[in-house]
């Protein structure tokens, strides 16, 4: 290897972010879609202010999970075999490719979460106690979801109906992240420590990173 793992991963991240900047898929499609979902729910269940206030944070995280998956899997249906060959023959370690793609998705997810958080606060009038924890939880959820989505995307890779399948693989496995995110704020509301929840999310993130790095070569060779 002529370049370091870090250089390779950063090159992949930069490539993905550049492609997103040009195509605007996350900014102009997924993000508005998520915002619309937040707008539709009160229309369906009623606009009673105390109810909205109570369900606001939980709904925010559910929308982040379900729509965030779409961000993490966007490369699953856009990258061609020829492009994959070029990346492989540039000597890029498959594990560096995994880390790089997950990192790009992570940055996009953080932006996605931040915008949707503002929309949620505006539409649902959610109480802002414990907001100081928000950045940390957002980072953990963003990291976990991007790692999980990238891993799932490389598992289904080139198969039939790949882009439809990834959300099904990711959604049930993202339960620890969803529970961790919502319970952090629930614990704060009840005046308890939320350390257990952040710790649990950290473990999820670490395990997913290890799993993705270890399986990267196995998953690439069948492509």
């Amino acid at each position, binding site marked *: 290897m002529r370049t370091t793992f870090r250089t390779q991963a950063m090159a992949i991240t930069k490539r993905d972010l550049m492609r997103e900047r040009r195509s605007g898929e996350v900014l102009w499609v997924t993000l508005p879609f998520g915002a619309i979902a937040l707008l539709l729910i009160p229309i369906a269940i009623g606009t009673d202010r105390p109810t909205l206030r109570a369900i606001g944070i939980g709904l925010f995280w559910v929308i982040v999970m379900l729509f965030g998956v779409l961000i993490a899997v966007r490369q699953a249906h856009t990258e061609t075999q020829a492009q994959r060959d070029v990346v492989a023959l540039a000597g890029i370690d498959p594990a560096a490719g995994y880390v790089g793609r997950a990192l790009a998705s992570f940055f996009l997810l953080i932006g996605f979460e931040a915008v949707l958080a503002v929309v949620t606060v505006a539409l649902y009038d959610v109480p802002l106690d414990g907001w100081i924890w928000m950045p940390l939880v957002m980072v953990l959820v963003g990291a976990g979801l991007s790692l999980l989505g990238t*891993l799932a995307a490389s*598992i*289904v*890779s*080139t*198969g*039939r*109906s*790949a882009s439809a*399948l990834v959300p*099904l*693989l990711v*959604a*049930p*496995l993202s*339960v*620890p992240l969803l*529970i*961790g995110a919502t*319970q952090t704020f*629930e*614990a704060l509301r009840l005046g308890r420590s939320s350390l*257990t929840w952040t710790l*649990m999310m950290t*473990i*999820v993130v670490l*395990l*997913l990173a290890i*799993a993705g790095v270890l*399986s990267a070569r*196995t*998953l690439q*060779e*069948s492509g």
Partner: protein
Amino acid sequence: MTTLERNPSSVWPWIVMAVAGLVTFVAAMSVSPDAVQGQLSRIMYVHVPSAWLAYLSFGVTMFASAMYLWKRDLAWDRRAHSSAEIGVFFTGLAISLGMIWGKSTWGVWWTWDARLTLTAIMFFVYLGYLALRRTTDDLDARAKRAAVMGVLAVIQVPLVHFSVIWWQTLHQPPSIIKPEGPDMDPSMVVTLLISVLSFTVMYAAMMYKRIDLARIEDAVLIAEQTNTGPAAGEAVVAPDLSGGS
């Protein structure tokens, strides 16, 4: 073509399944009813073995997936696949029976009990595993992807399990009558044991047949992919117009 060492037409596994089912039924119907729950306790003798088989099947899937990644032998892939399908079946059955039991005992179809929630999530994880297997007919690629997914579930299912338990303890302390309490009648314990055992035997027989199916299906794929016979256009023959039968 792969040779089939075992006879896929063998009847004995079906007989084993029927006998195991019958043993469970007779044992469950002949034991005396629970003092608190009455006759409803009988549902337990199919619900608990189903739940046990769900966990056992997914355990076997995880083990077989890991073995495939190590040995790269498609026989392990077939075992993982067969066990996952049987596991999804028993998970669905355990959930359905749990719901019937819940409706009859507590009046609700669903409670957010930690184990129930985990089982439901597990159902979808392995449904995803089965869906993943349908995305390609390339045997090696399919086996590899499925095996990574099978192992990924090993990491995630315990995490989901613990997160759900912690989540549940924070919300609603368990206020549910658990049948498997220490004050269970010895005759009920024995019956439960019999039902779990006979269901495990049923699982083994099902696995035998399901692996046969996987083997034949793989052979069909191999035959189709290596078929070098005439192309479709050449196979056309003039219709027989001579009439008569």
